[in-house]
């Protein structure tokens, strides 16, 4: 990852942080709001494979944890696991397919929220059991699925290097498609 990629990805991340902190927190249903930053490691995993998904999940998680009352590093750990997992699963699929990012975002976000709560409880955050997990999963997953394609374009712009992990099954490269 070169300096330009780091700079560009920092811009994308800053944009998502601002949108999450303003529009994201104001769009809530029964106290549950979207979790927009989660989409970044997921689309990074789809675009660049498990390693890139994990690195992006780590970076995004550390930034997200600055704004959360939960233990510092919890979002980073969950982001690494989900980014790696999504990258690993989608590496055998046609990563240029239009349906893939929304579906990956839908399922990846759902898994992220469940893992986040589960690991939080293991770390002694008992209040994480006293939430409406179904609603959290629904709201976050649906919003991130809708956001997946534009997020994919932004991450592809920020991290344009071709993936060395896996081989897209389509004739065109992943980079070219996005």
């Amino acid at each position, binding site marked *: 990852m070169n300096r330009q990629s780091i700079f560009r990805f920092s811009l994308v991340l800053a944009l998502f*942080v*601002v949108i999450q*902190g*303003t*529009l994201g*927190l*104001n769009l*809530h249903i*029964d*106290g*549950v*709001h979207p*979790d927009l930053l989660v989409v970044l490691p997921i689309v990074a995993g789809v675009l660049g494979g498990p390693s890139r998904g*994990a*690195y992006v*999940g*780590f970076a995004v*998680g*550390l*930034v997200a944890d*600055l*704004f*959360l*009352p*939960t*233990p*510092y*590093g*919890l979002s*980073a*750990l969950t982001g*690494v*696991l989900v980014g790696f997992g999504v990258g690993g699963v989608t590496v055998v699929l046609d990563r240029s397919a239009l349906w893939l990012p929304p579906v990956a975002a839908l399922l990846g976000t759902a898994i992220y*929220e469940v893992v*986040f*709560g589960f690991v*939080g409880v293991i*770390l*002694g*955050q*008992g*209040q*994480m*059991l*006293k*939430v*409406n997990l179904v609603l*959290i999963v629904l709201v*976050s997953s649906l919003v991130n699925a809708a956001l997946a394609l534009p997020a994919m374009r932004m991450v592809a712009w920020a991290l344009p290097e071709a993936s060395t992990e896996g081989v897209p099954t389509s004739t065109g490269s992943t980079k070219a498609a996005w």
Partner: protein
Amino acid sequence: MVLVLVTITIITLGNNGALGGLVSGFQSLASDVFSPLDGVVSAVTDPIGSFLAGAVHYGSVNQENQRLVNEIGQLNGERDAARDNAEALKQLTALLHLPFVGNLETVPAAVTNYGTSNFSATVTLDVGSARGVQAGMPVVAAGGLVGQVSTTSGGSCVVRLITDGSAVVGVRYGPAPSQLAVLNGEGYGRDLSAQLVPPNTLLNVGEVFTTSGLQGAVFPPGIPVAKVAVAYSGGVSTQETVLVKPIANLESLRYVSVVLWGPAS
């Protein structure tokens, strides 16, 4: 695998307090940088949201009546804004008359954000350490207790609401009131549960629980917290099952007061 180990190390060090100063410093910096942006973006997006809400509210729109519907939407937005202002005025006026605070010094604050995490019940206020606000201070609104400051930065602070799953409040109830109990938060939007209430205790719906103020308590005495919603005794239970509803309206907070009080004061 390396990243997983790094994150687990960070979490472990954070839990042990080894990273406490560093992390809270970065969190404070992030909060200070982000708070002004929040205000600016909200000021731009809120009128757009009101306008769209007004238009959408009136159902299907076709090209012939587009202009008319937009006008109606705009008028509705203005009406909603007027209602909004009236509600804000009501909450601000109520903050001027908080008898339970007594002579304690308070700092008025506006709620800038509801819950940054779906997994905890918190609100963010527009006052911080620059106004004397410190972690642990009680926060009240019209009616009663709202919660407790959990973290502060220069210009903002995060308040953990009494409904948060980790919130615990020592309270008094009864005629004197002399009976002691503990209220536990059960999550955002849910009633609190009362612990240590002996079985067959006569509790009327609407009866008020106030902060106990016992030595070492984290809240000053006499602040109304919640009213009894449900109370019943089971067959072999060692305590009465009591659910209480917060008196302060925690789901539509606009303005609150931070009480400049700590357990040592």
